[in-house]
């Protein structure tokens, strides 16, 4: 039996594999102690032996030898680059890749391809919370405290986080505290709540402003903390004068008395946390929304206080590590900024190139996909660990852009919807067949161990990267441990400093929290207790204002659409839709409607309905439930369809698309 971690979400539950693909939970990993797993975790092994596995490289759909495919790709890349310049080649990564792969991929883009055009699907995930945390605290470490701290709290507010569905073992850490859940749906998490606030989609920012307004008016601000540990509160107070609770009630639909109840509970608690998830973050104003919740947390004196705090509930398996080591358009390893000369000099030194040879910032994920195949945009795309045809907003448009590429190369272990469009598909290893590190939602670096020998013909992403790099004249490491050693040096001195972390330490210490600047350093479970990461050590209040969703409902599209997850599936579903028990549990996409809305539209449970937006159309089966607002429809996004409808309006700071709200029309399909 080999001790490793689940292939799915950012909780990274500990599990053992063996004999064969059999899975049993580990009890030594705090995230899922005392040994819990959801159905996704229990059945994760089924894909290891599943007949849908890719085992041969495909060139235009035909099986070919590895060398043939690699030579082809390298030649095409060189030719496109020679004709159109290095930015004509783009790289798109994923938040499920190990730290080693994320690092290697970013380096490959900058060093071997010389392109600035590299970003990843994490942009669609935690980018708003990351931007807001950096703005407020000077550093983004998702949850800057161990998950086990939550159980000791009196009150936990979850803003747009449905952990009972997305990461069920998380719920075991919430048995103690009173839960306040902010969600337009009475989600499985909201059902566990002591208080459920059910705002109109796209109005969480107004709600957070209203809550802080009440806290100030009712004298609940921790003035001592604000004076000692923060700056900028005065500007925030002025910005809040326009957000009195009755106005917020009209915008959000959340009754004033419930807002007041929430604020009082948070303020009265000895220990309290505010956590945000994608529901608050995936908006064209997601960064400001998270900022407003952070402002509330700061006013109540929570962040950097023992037993209290703010945190982002990171989603993807390596969502945290994936955003730290250089596959992001504006970043270099160690969570360094690509436009910081000192950062460039340090990383260039590790890479053995001149600082000026590192390209500048490139396009963000959606902008990159939107530019594919256009005269100014990339003509070739290398895709790792992502399935944008399903997961990008305005998915039909994105598919069209991808279709216009001169060259699409993907690394996959099953034939995802995007791989099916590729000129070249490289069959790669999956989690249990490879070693590497993952950084979970707590910022704890964990070790994923190889448990099984990969099927013949399959190679790791690191091998593919190195083989292509070699053909382009560069030498890349392929051994995960060696790549990690290089990552440690590249990250040294950066905000996400991994230099003191080793595979041995991770194994012996059940994970190590970054920053960890030396092998003698114990790691940092709670980085903000003494000071925040800004040069003056203080957290910053940032004044923000609510504004309407990028697309509001109107006569033509009179219903809000919100998208989200179901328990049985993960992300684009490329993995989970191939696992029989998960398909049995959640076989098909659906549209959730309130009984009043359904009656009005003459739709009954089980009817096939057509949902259309300004960007596309999708069909799904109706489910009728009073758990949703009357003005809102909900669709899970694990199948093709939901993202044909969603709006690619971007957050000005994080470049996050507005997945969580758009306007649609819902009709019975006759």
């Amino acid at each position, binding site marked *: 039996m080999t001790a490793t971690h689940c292939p799915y979400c950012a909780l990274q539950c500990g599990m053992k594999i063996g004999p064969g693909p059999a899975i049993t939970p580990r009890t030594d990993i705090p995230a899922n102690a005392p040994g*819990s797993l959801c159905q996704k975790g229990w059945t994760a092994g089924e894909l290891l032996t599943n007949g849908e596995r890719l085992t041969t490289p495909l060139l235009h759909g035909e099986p070919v030898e590895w060398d043939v495919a690699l030579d082809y790709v390298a030649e095409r890349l060189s030719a496109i680059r020679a004709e159109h310049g290095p930015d004509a080649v783009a790289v798109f990564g994923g938040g499920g890749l190990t730290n080693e792969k994320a690092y290697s991929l970013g380096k490959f883009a900058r060093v071997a391809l010389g392109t600035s055009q590299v970003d990843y699907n994490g942009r669609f995930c935690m980018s708003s919370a990351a931007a807001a945390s950096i703005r407020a605290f000077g550093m983004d470490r998702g949850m800057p405290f161990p998950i086990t701290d939550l159980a000791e709290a009196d009150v936990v507010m979850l803003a747009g986080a449905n952990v009972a569905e997305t990461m069920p073992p998380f719920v075991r850490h919430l048995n103690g505290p009173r839960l306040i859940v902010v969600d337009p749906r009475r989600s499985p998490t909201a059902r566990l709540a002591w208080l459920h606030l059910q705002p109109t989609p796209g109005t969480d920012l107004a709600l957070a402003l209203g809550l802080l307004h009440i806290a100030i008016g009712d004298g609940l601000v921790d003035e001592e903390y604000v004076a000692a540990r923060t700056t900028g509160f005065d500007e925030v107070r002025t910005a809040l004068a326009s957000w009195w609770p009755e106005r917020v009630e*009209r915008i959000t639909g959340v009754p004033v008395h419930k807002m007041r109840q929430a604020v009082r509970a948070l303020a009265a608690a000895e220990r309290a946390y505010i956590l945000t998830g994608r529901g608050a973050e995936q908006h064209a104003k997601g960064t400001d929304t998270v900022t407003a919740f952070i402002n509330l947390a700061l006013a109540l004196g929570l962040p950097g206080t023992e037993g209290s705090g703010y945190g982002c509930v990171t989603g993807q398996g390596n969502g945290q590590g994936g955003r730290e080591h250089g596959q992001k358009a504006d970043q270099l390893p160690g969570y360094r900024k690509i436009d910081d000369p000192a950062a460039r000099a340090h990383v260039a030194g590790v890479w053995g190139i001149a600082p000026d040879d590192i390209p500048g910032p490139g396009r963000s994920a959606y902008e990159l996909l939107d530019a594919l195949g256009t005269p100014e945009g990339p003509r070739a795309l290398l895709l790792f660990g992502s399935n944008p045809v399903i997961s990008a907003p305005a998915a039909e448009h994105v598919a069209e852009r991808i279709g216009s590429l001169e060259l699409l190369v993907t690394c996959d272990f099953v034939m995802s919807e995007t791989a099916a469009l590729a000129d070249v598909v490289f069959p790669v290893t999956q989690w249990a067949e490879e070693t590497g590190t993952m950084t979970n939602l707590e910022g704890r670096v964990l070790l994923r161990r190889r448990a099984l020998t990969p099927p013949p013909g399959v190679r790791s992403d690191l091998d593919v990267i190195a083989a292509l790099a070699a053909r382009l004249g560069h030498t890349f490491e392929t051994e995960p441990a060696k790549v990690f050693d290089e990552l440690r040096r590249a990250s040294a001195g950066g905000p996400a400093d991994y230099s003191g972390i080793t595979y041995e330490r991770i194994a012996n210490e059940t994970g190590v929290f970054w920053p960890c600047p030396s092998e003698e350093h114990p790691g940092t479970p709670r980085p903000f207790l003494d000071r925040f990461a800004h040069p003056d050590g203080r957290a910053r209040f940032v004044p923000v204002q609510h504004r309407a969703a990028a697309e509001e409902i109107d006569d033509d599209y009179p219903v809000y659409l919100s998208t989200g997850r179901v*328990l049985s599936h993960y992300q684009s579903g490329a993995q989970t839709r191939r696992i029989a*028990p998960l398909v049995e549990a959640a076989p098909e996409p659906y549209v959730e409607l309130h009984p009043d809305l359904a*009656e009005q539209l003459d739709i009954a449970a089980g009817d096939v309905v057509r949902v259309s937006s300004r960007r596309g159309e999708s069909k799904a089966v109706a489910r009728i439930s009073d758990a949703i607002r009357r003005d809102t429809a909900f669709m899970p996004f694990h199948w093709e369809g939901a993202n044909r409808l969603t709006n690619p309006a971007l957050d000005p700071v994080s470049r996050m698309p507005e997945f969580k709200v758009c306007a649609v029309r819902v009709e019975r399909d006759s």
Partner: protein
Amino acid sequence: MRLVVVGNGMAGSRLVSEVRTRDPHMKITVFGAEERRPYNRILLSNVLAGSARPDQVRLVDPGWYEAHGVEAVFGDPVAHIDRETRHVVTRGGRREPYDLLALATGSDAIVPPIPGVERAVPFRTLDDCERIMRAAEQARAAVVIGGGLLGIEAARGLAGRGLPVTLLHLAGHLMERQLDVEAGQVLGETLTGLGVGIRTGVSASAVEADGVRLDDGELIPADLVVLACGVRPVTGLAADAGLEVRRGIVVDDELRTDDPSIFAIGECAEHDGTVYGLVAPAWEQATVAAEVITGGKALYRGSRLVTRLKAKSVELAAMGETQLGEEQAEVVRFSHRARGTYRKLVIKDGRLVGAILLGESDAVGTLTQLFDRGGPVPGDRAGLLFPGLAAAPVADSPTLMPDAATVCRCNNVTKGQIRACWEAGARDVDGVAAATRATTGCGTCRDAVEGIVGWLCEQEGISV
């Protein structure tokens, strides 16, 4: 382009910031009659009641004007508009040229012409608010004249400070413009319970040294008298300049007066026959005017009015046409006066055209939005008035649960599978968990699984 804004209150200050957001370069000068930087008048009753701090009403930071290249003049009101040469002239004699002019002069508190009224304090500005708060510290009893929204908020605020308060109102019931008779009465009863004496259908004839004299000669003792008798649009400047003025300064859908270079917004403006006295319409108008002023296209089509009382322990929302009777509309009503609860929906052609919600209610947000959007009213009217009524939880006792019901969501385990597992020999939760993985996810179904196993054992007479 030079923009001059006359008035730096709720409407004027909003216009300035909306214009600046859209155009970073336009030269903007704003004149305010008050010495203070703009503040949120809506919050004054909260300040009076102690539920907002005085520093919480500030709408503009000290450095904002300089940082945004806006010239703000305080305490020197505009006295004259010279439309010929396109200048405004202030009381202090300053001449300021404009290309576009926006009037946001607001309104003045109405002071009834009765003897001794100068002893009373109108409730309109932050200065007024501070005066009332100072006086309240010494006072032994207060009278508020005017039982509209503001008067009620003021009376409730003073009562909350421990002061005996009497509220005098001319009409037969409180807030007669927003409420029907019964709602007005229920509101009065609620306020009475909070220490506010209510006198409706009375008229003050004089403010005397020791109280307010009513028409019938009765003296209501008070050493603090607050006036909340409504407001009157400030239109003199516009009228003197020859602009069309009826009740307010007449504007079109672009908020332009009959001089296309002059706009008017807020409480001084009259659009489509209506002068609005609430902040929401003023801000909607500011947004439209800013768009037009900066060269964009936008039209103002009027506002839907929602009145939301801000008074501790008094929850009241009123919107639209609340007084229509059964013969004019479909009326749904629930009244429980003993609990201070009154709820009324007025529905016409399947749309919500009016509503009153008195007493704490989870329905307030939903109804306000339904009214604002003008969407169709769901068939289940009761569910609308009483959210959660339809969603009464189904008892999930093990006996009543069908076999197909999912017990463990995390691992998709049904009651039938648990039963099968029990029949195969599992006699406790751990046994069921080992066989089905039920309870191994979030763990919240543990009690349910325990219940089912216990029930099955009981059925078969097996003790556990």
